[in-house]
């Protein structure tokens, strides 16, 4: 039988009332916005921080002096003018020292990679969601593979003495231990990114795409501290989709230049992120931005070569190249010319002061690469080719013909010499010491399929045998620094 509660029934109503009031109190305490038009969820979201945190959390103090020294700089020099170190002089006779696959013992996904390099080896990218590092003879040192197959290391990584910084197309920046490939930190700055990262001081600058509250995508300038990965939203201006090249830096003006696909050149103060100027052009910008003679120079899709004042952005001159050029102009010191090859194979020189075209020469370049390089020849070759001493032996190296690199005298455009390649040029012309490194596509002798090979072109040197495959370890013979 149940207990009789009649003695307590007079208590039950007030107790129930107190209980009911207590329930209502706690309901309203936990949602004070119940009777308001604001929702509790929106209040939470307002309080939530949009700070971006790297993974893992890194303690300050591990980085040593010199760790962030750049080991590879695109376009050959620190002021991004695309001419090689004027203290180094070159021969004009080159032959193949060795050729090999990009990656001797690794994944097929790296078969057709893009690459950059330094004295430690080669860094392969652009092949999907993976990055690889080889030693100088092409053997794998490490690779980093991402889980999302749609996320690509599309842009050139930044290589320093001890670290590699790489951006993915889904907005993540990685800092990688250069020797072992361990992830030092990674941070997701946005939902996408374009262009390569660039190092200024202790910070890595890059552009990433953020999604706004109304689902618009904006591309902004970010800075990540190289040691910890802590992110700063540096710029507030939307630059739109930008080219995939590294931004160009001018340390004197503390400015960073980036070209957008919509035809705008942006210049930012890289310390504060303030927009210095925005210059609009007639069409999409195809090349990277080069700095020379206090000007920022680039080429557009409607075949123009444009120079603007590097400080103010005002137009200095504009020259019609008659055909578009996706190559980045090369500055030739002493001549004060710019060399640029249009997509239809015309190598042209332009006076940097006035924008006047000096000459153009049809190179019959059959490759899809049009970037040129400016180097100085040794004294005896200046004499041999009757070049004027005042110009100190500067020449232009450019792809030409079918499977060749040619050396041109910038004064009149005549060919000084040619280097034969065993296949179609598949990369920019890179310089290692006084040698040239390029990749070519060629047919494999055994299988007959098209493969990509890395070639070192250097001065003929004793002991080098073109037919000898590179050793299984150590530096290939004939490479500077090898025994």
């Amino acid at each position: 039988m149940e207990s009789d509660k009649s003695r307590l029934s007079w208590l039950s109503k007030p107790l129930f009332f107190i209980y009911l009031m207590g329930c209502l109190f706690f309901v309203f305490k936990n949602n004070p916005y119940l009777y308001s038009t604001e929702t509790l969820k929106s209040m939470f979201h307002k309080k939530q921080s949009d700070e971006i945190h790297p993974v893992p959390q890194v303690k300050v103090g591990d980085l040593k002096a010199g760790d962030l020294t750049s080991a590879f700089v695109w376009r050959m020099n620190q002021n991004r003018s695309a001419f090689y170190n004027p203290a180094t002089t070159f021969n004009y006779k080159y032959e193949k020292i060795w050729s090999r696959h990009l990656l001797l013992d690794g994944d097929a996904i790296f078969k057709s990679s893009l690459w950059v390099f330094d004295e430690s080896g080669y860094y392969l990218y652009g092949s999907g969601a993976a990055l690889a590092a080889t030693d100088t003879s092409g053997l794998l040192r490490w690779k980093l593979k991402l889980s999302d197959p749609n996320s690509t290391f599309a842009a050139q990584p930044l290589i320093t003495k001890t670290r590699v910084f790489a951006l993915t197309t889904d907005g993540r920046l990685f800092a990688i231990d250069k020797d072992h490939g361990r992830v030092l930190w990674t941070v997701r700055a946005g939902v996408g990114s374009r262009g390569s990262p660039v190092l200024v001081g202790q910070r890595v600058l890059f552009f990433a795409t953020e999604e706004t509250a109304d689902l618009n995508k904006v591309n902004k300038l970010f800075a990540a501290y190289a040691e910890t990965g802590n992110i700063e939203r540096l710029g507030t201006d939307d630059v739109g989709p930008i080219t995939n090249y590294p931004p160009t830096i001018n340390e004197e003006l503390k400015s960073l230049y980036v070209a957008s696909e919509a035809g705008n050149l942006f210049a930012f103060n890289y310390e504060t992120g303030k927009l210095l100027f925005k210059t609009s052009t007639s069409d999409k910008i195809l090349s990277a931005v080069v700095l020379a003679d206090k000007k920022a120079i680039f080429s557009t899709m409607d075949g123009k070569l444009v120079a603007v004042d590097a400080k103010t952005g005002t137009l200095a001159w504009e020259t019609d190249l008659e055909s578009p050029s996706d190559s980045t102009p090369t500055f030739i010191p002493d001549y004060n010319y710019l060399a640029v090859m249009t997509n239809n194979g015309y190598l042209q020189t332009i006076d940097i002061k006035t924008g006047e075209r000096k000459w153009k020469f049809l190179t019959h370049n059959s490759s899809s690469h049009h970037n040129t390089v400016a180097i100085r020849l040794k004294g005896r070759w200046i004499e041999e080719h009757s070049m004027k001493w005042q110009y100190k032996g500067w020449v232009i190296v450019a792809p030409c013909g079918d499977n060749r690199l040619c050396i041109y005298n910038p004064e009149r455009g005549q060919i000084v010499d040619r280097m034969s390649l065993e296949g179609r040029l598949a990369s920019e012309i890179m310089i290692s010491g006084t040698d040239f490194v390029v990749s070519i596509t060629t047919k494999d002798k055994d299988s007959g399929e098209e493969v990509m090979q890395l070639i070192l072109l250097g001065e003929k040197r004793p002991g080098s045998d073109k037919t000898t495959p590179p050793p299984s370890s150590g530096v290939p013979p004939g490479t500077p620094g090898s025994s």
Partner: protein
Amino acid sequence: MDWLKATFWEIKQSSALKWFGFLLGLSHLLTFFTWASTGHPPLGYYADSAPLCWSFFEDCASLRVLSLGQMTLVYYTYPVLAAIATIMFVSNRLYGVGWFFLTLAFFFKSLLYFNDARLSHNAHYLLFLAHAVFLFAPQKKSILKYLLVSFFVASGILKLNTEWMSGVWLTQHTGFHPKFAEWVAALTALAELILPWMLVSRKSQNIVVGFLGLLGLSIGYWFISDSIGPAVQVLFVLFYPFYYFEQRRNEMEYLYQSYIRPAASQAWLPIVILAFWTLQALPFAKHVNPAMASVSQNLALEGHPTHQDCQQTTFAIFANEVREVDLGDPKGRPERLQCDPFMRFLDVKNLCRKLAEESGFQNVASSFSLRTLNDKDYRRIFESDDLCNKKVNYRNLEQVGWNRTKAD
């Protein structure tokens, strides 16, 4: 075996208890149906060489004495036992057989359920308590009357937090306007706190209101969440009409207390109810003694799934490769465990076991961060690049870091 005879006597005397036995049998069939429609998770988890153990016993793999074949037999025998128990409770005479088969079904379910923490659910927790009372406790009718009310009130109390009151869970599952969802959330909490008390009222209209209100609420949430919880609530609510009619009949017929089998002491009622509420209070003990956390979290009802954002970054480290691994949301994992730190830690340990056989494998590095609706920023829960080390367990994670092994 006197207590068994007393148990049978009590069930024999009460049609409400027979009906509740029938409902408990149905709950087993419901449990099996839910498992079967989500890919037979007990068997899937048992086939996994690395179980996700309950937090109070991390080495549960050592207790796996049955083979997969034997466990499969247990799994498919379980609904048969439940079906027999259900049918037996329909009969007025075979309730003893029904009790026996219900006990067997309860035991088989325990074998399946306690093998892996991924199967944990508030509904099963409540069913275990209800079974324990129905099968073994004296004064079943009285205890069940208040225990089931306690279940609802405890569930209501767990909803008194900003996460539930924000209505985010409802918005995600129904597409309600946020403000409407807030009101539905508030009214749900109030309903669970107030309506159950009406079930124990003396006034019939209160009982009707309480019954219809809770039934409607449970059926409504059954459609929204598509989980076993609301279905079990419906079964519990269905006990009360039978209890009510039986009480009316007893009062009208003035059934005498039997001297052959006297009723058990009324003290059992407060003892059981107090025990239940003590269990619900256990999670607060971790503020006094943190070591209690791993024990208490499995002995009390879990809070309603809160809205959590979590991020996990994991890399498998090989001799000359670093491979990012997306551990993702394993199929079939309950929603409330998607961002559970312990589950995520066990996911990493499982990854270590799977990759151990790959050539060149060295370790796994992982970082896990969590943010609830209330949090301003993500909180780093664990972060280490030495997670495959056997000495690393969930309790000493704070002592290991990332990139420290390189320097050691």
